[in-house]
């Protein structure tokens, strides 16, 4: 009994239930994705599903198209979001905090509802749904994720560095490119990761914004994984996505999501 008390009074052990839980519900499932990808329906080892992916032109095309859309969306978000974050972080108006908050608020509203609202807006304005609507909707959904980290890094930036650059004779433009942009790169990286990863794996948004006329990789995975006899092939597709995600998170800041997590 006293030994038990000793174990529990050592606070290190308090994380054990969590570690156990995570091992069971995070690590094991991820391993299972690989296992399913490497087996057939009867559970025998096979590479057939991988071979199928590389010869399945629809899957490859959808995959490349999704990548393109994701890159494009990330780029648009960056181009739109950086100036906004910059303005908010540097402007000397009275309510930058409120402004930043207003930009983040849509993030906390169900993204499906926002997407449906976008569809309705397009209908109301008489604009056709399609690729344009898809990009608008994606950008609309993920722009806050780009603005927030950039705003954070810019706000924490030491402004005396900019002043120093200007004192040393740099023009506004020069000091922006040579001082501000390099200093804000961590924020830009985490913004890119936070926009790119959900965009490349999105599945419901594309369906709603294009009346299912454009299929993204996420929808393809969903189609296969919910069909019982194609489940293993779906696992292969998920694995492909997982690899992309892994690569992105290595490229980006490791605690990219932590910044998003610290929103409250």
């Amino acid at each position, binding site marked *: 009994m006293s030994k038990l008390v000793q174990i*529990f009074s*050592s*606070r*290190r052990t*308090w*994380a054990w*239930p*969590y570690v156990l*839980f*995570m*091992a069971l*519900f*995070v*690590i094991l*499932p*991820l391993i*299972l*994705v690989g296992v*399913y990808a490497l087996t057939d329906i009867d559970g025998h080892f096979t590479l057939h599903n991988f071979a199928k992916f590389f010869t399945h032109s629809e899957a490859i095309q959808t995959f490349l198209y999704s990548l393109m859309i994701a890159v494009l969306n990330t780029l648009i978000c960056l181009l*739109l979001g950086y100036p906004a974050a910059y*303005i908010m972080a540097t*402007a000397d108006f009275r309510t930058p905090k409120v402004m930043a*908050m*207003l*930009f*983040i*608020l*849509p993030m*906390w*509203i*169900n993204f*499906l*509802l*926002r997407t*449906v*609202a*976008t569809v309705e*807006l397009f*209908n*109301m*304005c*008489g604009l056709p749904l399609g690729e344009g609507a898809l990009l608008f909707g994606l950008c609309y959904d993920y722009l806050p994720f780009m603005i927030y980290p950039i705003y954070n890094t810019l706000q924490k930036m030491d402004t005396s560095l900019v002043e120093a650059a200007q004192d040393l004779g740099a023009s506004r433009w020069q000091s922006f490119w040579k001082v501000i942009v390099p200093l804000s790169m961590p924020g830009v990286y985490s913004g890119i990761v936070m926009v790119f*990863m*959900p965009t490349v794996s999105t*599945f*419901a948004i594309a369906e*709603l914004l294009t*009346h299912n*006329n454009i*299929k993204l990789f996420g929808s393809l995975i969903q189609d296969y*994984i919910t069909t019982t006899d194609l*489940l293993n092939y779906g696992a292969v597709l*998920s694995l492909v*996505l*997982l690899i992309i*995600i892994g690569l992105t998170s290595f490229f980006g800041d490791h605690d*990219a999501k*932590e910044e998003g*997590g610290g929103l*409250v």
Partner: protein
Amino acid sequence: MRRLLVICHLSLVVCLAAFAQSQVNYNLRVGTTGEVKVLQNFPETYAGEKVNVSIQHSAFTIVPADGLPYLEQLDYVFADQPVYELGIWGDSIYSYTDESEVRWTLWRNHREIKNRAQRVRAANAYKTFESYVRTHTSVAKRSTGWIWLVFAGMLLAAGIVYAVVLILQRRKEKCLTPVEQEMLRRKRVSLRRHIGSQAYLWLLMVVLYAPIALIAVFSFTESKILGNWTGFSFQLYANLFSGKADAGLNSAIIYTVVIALIAAVCSTLLGTLAAIGLYNMRARQRKIVSFLNSVPMINPDIITGISLFLLFVALGFSQGLATVCIAHVVFCTPYVVLSVLPRLSRMNPNTYEAALDLGATPAQALRMVMLPELWPGMLSGFILALTLSVDDFGVTFFTKGSGGLETLSTFIYSDARKGGLTPELRPLFTIILMVMLAVLIYINIRNKKQEEK
């Protein structure tokens, strides 16, 4: 340069206005409804009558104005469409084919039809039907042009105001000394920059909030379809609160709340304990556990959902409320851990030991020493978990099983796929928006007060 700007501005205004003009037209988009007077025998029985047309993803629904259902009469509208024919069955117009499955996808997804010729024919059938409706009925003109006219007007007004200000300034400038002129010029440049950046922010804000505002505004009218203003009313709110709304919506709301509460409570408890444990670990262990903690945050929800789905399939769990709750705890807990950790590093690590030395049991020490210190972190973790859980779609979608369990997100998804949005979702959405706004303001005020302390 200035002349070019003026020309650009004016041509943009003209373009918008012209676009607005072209938008005053029939609008046969999905989701359109309106009263229609049948000019010719559209369906024969309706000639000369007024009917309501509602265009959904899968079907054109036609209901006579007197509301009597039109039962089981089969009419071929287009005999010249050999494969995809459009007919009236019951009170709906369908396109159908021998492969009955294609019917659903016909208008929603031409691309899903593999055969190219068939696809073209399907698309043509749709077009023919559309033009048929346009020429044979007077579909209620839902003019969307006014929005664009408003844009054009606003743009023009802004341009005129700017020009007037500029001219006035120029006049004032003429009677100044060169030095004063230069100072004024500089002042104006910085002012222009300020106005430009502010305008950019506000423009972005308007675009970001336009869809949200649209839903919020249309929560105060009764019409089934968004975009049709049928007078101010609180009916939808009343429906929502009296439970008169769609049964699916009611159960979805209840499930969402129940799941969010269970997930938030579980993940707060688990996460707080984990954070305390993590904080007291040695560096290497700590690294491993933090990595483990970050995995669910890095994983996009579709991967989390699919991997859990595979786990439940492999273990033979029947999917339902329990699996959804587990899944939500999985992706909520890391955020709780992260919001409790900073609190831990702020508190004096020796107080807990001191409590033990003074004879408290670990449970007592936890309750009386740790909890009061960790409380704010736990609370923000709890709130974060709640919002994450309510907001989640991807994970829920894959773990909810096929037992009819729907949360708000999945309900919206299936609802939107069917073509329309249950009207009561609009007031619900507005309320959520307001609550979120209130919570954010509250947190902001709290943070500010803490900073002042």
